[in-house]
């Protein structure tokens, strides 16, 4: 993505579009989604409590802001707070998890609020990865996978062990593939962790309960620590799909698995309807970890002071949104949530209608990850320019149509295949514009290189 950015700044060249549509990030606000009023009003009231004087704000906004401020040392968002997060908020997050999982108990002491889920993931990886070990610590990671986790693993000196998701089966996670990956890994490293993304990023799959149970059994058998990146759990749209957390799936499998499989699940305020990527808040919930390890994890998190307080407040709202009967409830529910349901279908259907594109159904997450069948001439041209073929496509799409997407090579893909990732969590008008521009561009591109 960084190599594409400079071309936006080329001035003085006439384009067919007025502005670039950036759907290369998993960043709803950047893509045009408006922030949720309730959250923003609560945060504004917390940072400037004088706003609560008078009647500008609804009663439930004020009540929430006051409760949150009372929970902070010094009654201010400007103070440091406890390492794992403001205790009242941690408590409320654990209650949310219990509710979400149909009653499977969650305990506050197993939860750490952090500056975004990646930060928490890095801390947990620090516990798993021995950077000085030989053979190196290995973590099984999906292909495709978003790049930040890969970078973190590499920075820690871990071996990234890829397991390929089955595109033709809607990007399903196949246990046989896990077995193959694990088998080949054993020769070069010591596999210790299994990282799964559910719902997927960049591919928009949502695992079935059955698939998750297979993964859990595999992790138990190979004694792998399960790292479940569940940040898109609030973006599940398929009619027959529902999100089941790994924690719940594990608990429902009963003893001995439910007492022994070690699991870390991650969530964040950055995704979903809130899309508050810039506030930096997420959490990790740890299951079945040895108390001595938990103690060490506490020290790791302590080194970072705490997660930003405003982010923690946003997390509180995410896990405890306005309820029916609350004054803010109608506005909160007026979110164009349902548009996304339509979009993902509209997008996949449209893209599948374009020759040279094939897109698996998007059941969850914020992205579509269609496969593009690039003509040999295009691949040649890309090579001559020293670019990966899908990067070349994205570059042209940006230059000629003003749509910024990200190439599949950033996420990993089967050799010889090419994909493009688009964030589809955008308002309708923008989605229509994207499809219009993409269609015009794609036909021209395929023509040029036929």
């Amino acid at each position, binding site marked *: 993505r960084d190599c594409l950015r400079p071309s936006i700044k080329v001035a003085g060249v006439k384009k067919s579009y007025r502005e670039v549509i950036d759907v290369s990030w998993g960043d709803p*606000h950047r893509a045009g989604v408006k922030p949720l*009023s309730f959250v923003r009003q609560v945060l504004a009231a917390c940072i*400037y409590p004088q706003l609560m004087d008078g009647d500008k704000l609804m009663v439930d906004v004020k009540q929430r802001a006051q409760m949150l401020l009372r929970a902070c040392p010094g009654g201010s968002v*400007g103070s440091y707070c406890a390492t794992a997060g403001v205790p009242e908020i941690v408590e409320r997050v654990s209650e949310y998890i219990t509710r979400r999982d149909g009653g499977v108990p969650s305990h506050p002491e197993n939860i750490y609020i952090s500056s975004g889920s990646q930060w928490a993931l890095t801390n947990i990886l620090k516990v798993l990865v021995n950077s000085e070990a030989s053979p190196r610590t290995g973590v099984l990671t999906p292909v495709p996978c978003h790049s930040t986790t890969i970078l973190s693993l590499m920075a820690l000196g871990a071996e990234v062990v890829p397991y390929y998701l089955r595109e033709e089966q809607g990007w399903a996670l196949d246990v046989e593939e896990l077995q193959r990956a694990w088998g080949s890994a054993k020769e070069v490293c010591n596999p210790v962790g299994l990282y799964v993304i559910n719902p997927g990023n960049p591919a928009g799959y949502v695992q079935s309960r059955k698939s998750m149970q297979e993964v859990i059994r595999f992790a138990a058998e190979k004694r792998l620590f399960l790292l479940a990146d569940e940040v898109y759990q609030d973006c599940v749209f398929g009619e027959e799909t529902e999100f089941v957390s790994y924690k719940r799936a594990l608990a429902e499998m009963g003893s001995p698995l439910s007492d022994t499989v070690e699991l870390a699940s991650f969530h964040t305020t950055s995704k979903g309807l809130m899309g508050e990527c*810039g506030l930096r808040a997420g959490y990790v919930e740890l299951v079945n970890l040895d108390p001595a390890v938990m103690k060490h994890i506490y*020290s790791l998190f302590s080194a970072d002071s*705490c997660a930003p307080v*405003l982010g923690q407040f946003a997390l509180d709202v995410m896990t405890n949104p306005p309820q029916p009967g609350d004054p803010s409830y109608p506005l909160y529910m007026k979110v164009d949530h349902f548009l996304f349901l339509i979009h993902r279908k509209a997008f996949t259907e449209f893209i599948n209608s374009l020759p040279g594109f094939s897109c698996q159904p998007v059941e969850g997450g914020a992205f579509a990850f269609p496969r593009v069948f690039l003509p040999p001439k295009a691949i040649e041209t890309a090579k001559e320019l020293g670019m990966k073929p899908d990067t070349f496509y994205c570059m042209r799409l940006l230059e000629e149509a003003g749509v910024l997407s990200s190439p599949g090579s950033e996420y990993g893909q089967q050799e010889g295949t090419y994909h493009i990732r688009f964030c589809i969590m955008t308002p309708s008008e923008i989605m229509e514009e994207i499809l219009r521009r993409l269609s015009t561009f794609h036909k021209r591109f395929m023509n040029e290189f036929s």
Partner: protein
Amino acid sequence: VSCGDPQRAGMRPISFVRQVIAVCLCPELLTEEIFPLDVRIRAQKLLEACDGQSVGSYTASSGLPHVRQTIAEFIMKRDGVPAYAENIFISSGAQRVFIKLLSGGEGQHQTGVLVPQPCPHTLLPVLDEAGVMAVPYRLIEEKNWAVDKSELHQALTTYRGRCELRAIYISNPGIPTGHLQDRKSIEEVIEFAAAERLMLLVDEVYQDSIYAPNREFISYKKVLFEMEKHLRDSVELVSFHSLSCAFVAECGLRAGYMEVVNIDSRVMHYVDTLLCTDINAPVTGQLALDLMLNPPKLGDPSYNTFAQETLLTQATLARNAQRALKLLNDLPGISCQPAKGGIYLYPHLDLPPEFRRQAKVRKGLEPVVFYCQMLLQEEGLITGPGQHDERTGSHHLRLCVLVPPDALDEVLYRLSTFHLRFVDSDVKSRK
């Protein structure tokens, strides 16, 4: 009062900062006339600098370009030396990134970083976690905690062969000592770093809180740029500043920046990549940095309130430091160097041998930790145990004095009550 968290202690935030951030969070407030015009104009400008015009969007890992530019302009104005946005990186925890960069090696090739003794209590865990050896150089208490060249050399020789020294860390104003380096002292450290080919990691987070009369903060960068050319062009320097400083004191917003000087661009590429895994510093924090370093000016509607608030904090800090210093020095068995800046006092405690023995043998604790525990239990006052100096065997206490004046009254009352009782019981037990 063990940590630097003024707002926890009741110090009021700066209104301008809070108002602008509130409007940025809730842009409907841009039309609210309860907010002064300059607040609204600034909020508008900052929102335009954010992708999606929202504080909820990701930013580049190195920070919003607009804010990096503001920081560069602040530095230029402060130092009269050019500063460039591309050498400035905004992050929540910049020090960690640099230390990570330096870390590596095992055994005698393990990276070592020279750290002052005493140093900020949060620094040692960071080094430890990165697998870096902390190589202490003593600051000279009797000289107001000055940096001493012979101590630097002593540290070098002692640790030669035990690790590979790559950098020297220093804080100015000193944390927790409150020492303020003059130009000559800074030059000595720079020359030392140049001679030993060490990277300079300079923590200047309390640069805005100097209260000693006739003393001024001068940055390492400015001093460096006024030295010989060969030093100017080669000494590798990274300086840090933060929102968690004295006046704005927004510790909960979690943002700071580092400015790098003379670091190879290929290395900077790695820094940028390392920063990527942290995604970005919280946007509200980044915006607050802009407000902190480009505050209201004379003539702006918010200026008067802003000036009053900062003057009040400044005055509170200076008065508190003076009062606390006097009280501490009047207590038997406590002596405290006068601090020139920063928000801490670091008094020396004479702990009697019997007490020290009790602490170690009966409680398994460092004596000063035991002292702090007792102080907490008996008077409900949390203080910070200072770093134990093995060579001199001395003990210190760390106190944050940037608290509201009546809170300070209470702190001093409880401390003196406890300490007098402590001294008394020791005298009695010896009789």
